[in-house]
């Protein structure tokens, strides 16, 4: 038989349990909009007979009430991993998109101020010179337009260089942020291991752990592996970055060609090369190694072709003084677009004439107007850039939709629903009231038993 006061104990357990439920609900409500917070749920369990009290003993009670068995953090680790992967891809695309769109804005095509327009004006200038080979105005107009064309090409070349320099700095920032995050994550892993060993509530630490892992995934596309002690191991393309409580460092070196190589440096100083990354760092590496050098090479080819075509034709003509024409443009073969310059400084040096001697023949000027087909190459270059930006933009939109979908599924499990918390508050309140009623009922029963029993005949 159970003792007289066991019901009081039951009620006390219920009061305690419902207080915990209300505490957790209020904490959930408080953190409803906190970034990275996952909702908690109290797992209650009814206290019953022990499995095997003792060899010859018997459990006579009908139940010992309730107790809070665990404080569960509502997460799905697989969905978390999926979400990190998608966020890594999204941030890869978003970074590429941002860089490419900024770069594209500097191209200025189609319009009245781009390289294409400068080239058309340059050609028209030669025609005008062919019409009036003797006039100073037509000659200086050609020189002026040649300078404009050269400047337009060099501005684009400088844009590429500036963008590459900016993205190199950006990459350094990303790498140092990765190092900080990796160190923080290792420290968090250690705290979680210690905390779960001595039974402290580590849920807040786990929230922090997941947020660090998410940021690492966004920066590098890192993959994670859950440890038995609750920590997260992080690997970059198969190379370990964070292993439990110890963190390695990431380094990135950019070659002159723009090629980016990543390596993970262990605490003892040994470095392991890492393959291509995703995330922000991967996007920057791609931009630095492929996109910008590709555009730059196209621009160089255009500058070289322009200079070679026009120089060849110009040298076939005769200038205003009847001397054979010299080269019109000069460039450094190593970096043609950046070093393109007009050699002819004196207007009389323009070889408009097609016959020897000082004449007013303009046939070479006409030939020079049609000397180069570089416009087509430039159109292809711009088309290529435009297609790449358009494709990255489409991919980003798709990836954003996919990421939002995965985040939605995650929020469905981990997010705080205010209605739900209100309901659980309400039911806990009612249960609390009922448990109090149990107490007063037992109390009045005992009152009857103690004060009103055995008074017969008194």
């Amino acid at each position, binding site marked *: 038989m159970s003792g007289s006061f066991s019901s009081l104990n039951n009620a006390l357990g219920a009061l305690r349990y419902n207080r915990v439920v209300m505490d957790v609900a209020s904490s959930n409500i408080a953190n409803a909009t906190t970034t990275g917070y996952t909702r908690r749920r109290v797992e209650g369990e009814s206290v019953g007979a022990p499995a095997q009290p003792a060899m010859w003993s018997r459990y006579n009670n009908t139940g010992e009430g309730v107790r809070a068995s665990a404080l569960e953090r509502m997460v799905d680790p697989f969905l978390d991993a999926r979400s990190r992967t998608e966020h890594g891809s999204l941030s890869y695309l978003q970074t590429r998109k941002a860089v490419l769109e900024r770069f594209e804005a500097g191209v200025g095509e*189609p319009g009245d101020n781009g390289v294409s327009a400068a080239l058309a004006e340059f*050609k028209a200038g030669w025609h005008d010179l*062919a*019409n009036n080979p003797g006039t100073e105005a037509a000659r200086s107009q050609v020189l002026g337009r040649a300078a404009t064309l050269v400047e337009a090409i060099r501005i684009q070349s400088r844009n590429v260089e500036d963008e590459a320099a900016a993205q190199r700095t950006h990459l350094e920032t990303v790498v140092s942020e990765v190092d900080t995050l990796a160190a923080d994550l290792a420290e968090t892993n250690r705290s979680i291991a210690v905390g779960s060993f001595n039974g402290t509530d580590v849920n807040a630490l786990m929230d922090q752990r997941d947020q660090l892992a998410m940021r690492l995934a966004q920066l590098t596309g890192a993959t994670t592996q859950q440890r038995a002690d609750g920590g997260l191991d992080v690997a970059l393309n198969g190379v370990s970055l964070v292993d439990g409580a110890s963190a390695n460092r990431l380094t990135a070196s950019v070659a002159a060609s723009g090629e980016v190589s990543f390596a993970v440096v262990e605490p003892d100083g040994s470095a392991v090369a890492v393959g291509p990354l995703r995330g922000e760092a991967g996007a920057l590496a791609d931009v630095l190694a492929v996109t910008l050098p590709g555009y730059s090479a196209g621009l160089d080819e255009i500058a070289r072709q322009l200079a070679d075509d026009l120089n060849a034709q110009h040298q076939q003509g005769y200038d205003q003084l009847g001397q054979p024409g010299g080269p019109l443009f000069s460039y450094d073969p190593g970096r043609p677009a950046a070093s393109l310059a007009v050699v002819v400084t004196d207007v009389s040096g323009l070889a408009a004439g097609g016959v020897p001697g000082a004449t007013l023949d303009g046939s070479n000027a006409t030939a020079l107007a049609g000397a180069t087909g570089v*416009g087509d190459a430039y159109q292809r270059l711009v*088309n290529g850039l435009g297609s*790449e930006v358009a494709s990255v933009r489409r991919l980003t939109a798709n990836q954003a939709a996919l990421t939002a979908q995965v985040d939605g599924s995650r*929020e469905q499990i981990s997010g*705080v629903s205010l209605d739900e918390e209100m309901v659980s508050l309400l039911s806990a309140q009612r249960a609390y009231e009922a448990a109090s009623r149990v107490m007063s009922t037992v109390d009045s029963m005992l009152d009857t038993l103690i004060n009103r029993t055995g008074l017969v005949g008194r």
Partner: protein
Amino acid sequence: MTFTRVTQNMMSQRSLQGLHVSLDRLAKLQEQLSTGRVLNRPSDSPTDTTAAMRVRASLAETKQFARNAADGQGWLTQIDSTLQSMVSQTRRARDLALQGVNAGSASTTSREALALEVEQLRDSLISLANTRYLDRPVFGGVTTGTSAYDSDGQYVGVPGQVDRAIAEGVKVRVDVDAATAFGPQGANLFDDLESLSGALRSGDTAGVRAGLDALATGMDRLTSALADVGSRANRIDRAVQRTVDDELALRTSLSEIENVDLPKALVDLHLQEMAYQAALGATARVMQPSLMDFLR
């Protein structure tokens, strides 16, 4: 029990996302309307960008060809009118020579008068042969000097062609070769006139007859040069007409590629505005109620 949990955060995130998408579309239309262009950067449509760049290049070329042709028209018009007056003056010299043949035994004074007039005609023809267009002697070839013939009727120009490009790879000659129009060096129109005036003055009838024949040849040369100039002027006129048509066609297609279809864009803008307002309204409604409103 299984059910889809929907949290307030999810709804606010989704609403926000919807609002962003809607506002983005609105901004895109706004940009198109305020710039008046559909193509604002290559990625808006890479294919159209290439087309637009091509059309722009062709447009610039066509404009330049029109300028070249107009310049050529100026040259040919000038040459045409010069040759016309030279023909009429040469005809007058022939008349005088005929008079000289008929009046072979006339008085010295009247012969002298004929010779004087021929000489004046010669001077006038030389100055016509030095006619300039934009400061260049039109019969002087590619000379840098200011005249084609000196006062003795000797050619001082530099033989050469003056061409104008009127279409891709098409050039038209806009000057006239002096030797073709006025005869070769040493036996040109002015030399003929000089010997004619000499023959008239001296009463050398045979010389005057020879001069008459030479003038007939000179006339032929001038008229055939005139016919040649006329046919070239026709060619250039047709080219000018064609460049005008081309320019219009190119402008139209450029505008079709680059510019915004205003009525369509305005209707789209209106629709997007309504969609955005609806999204705002829905968001405001969705965010308001919660269980709290119904609990004591």
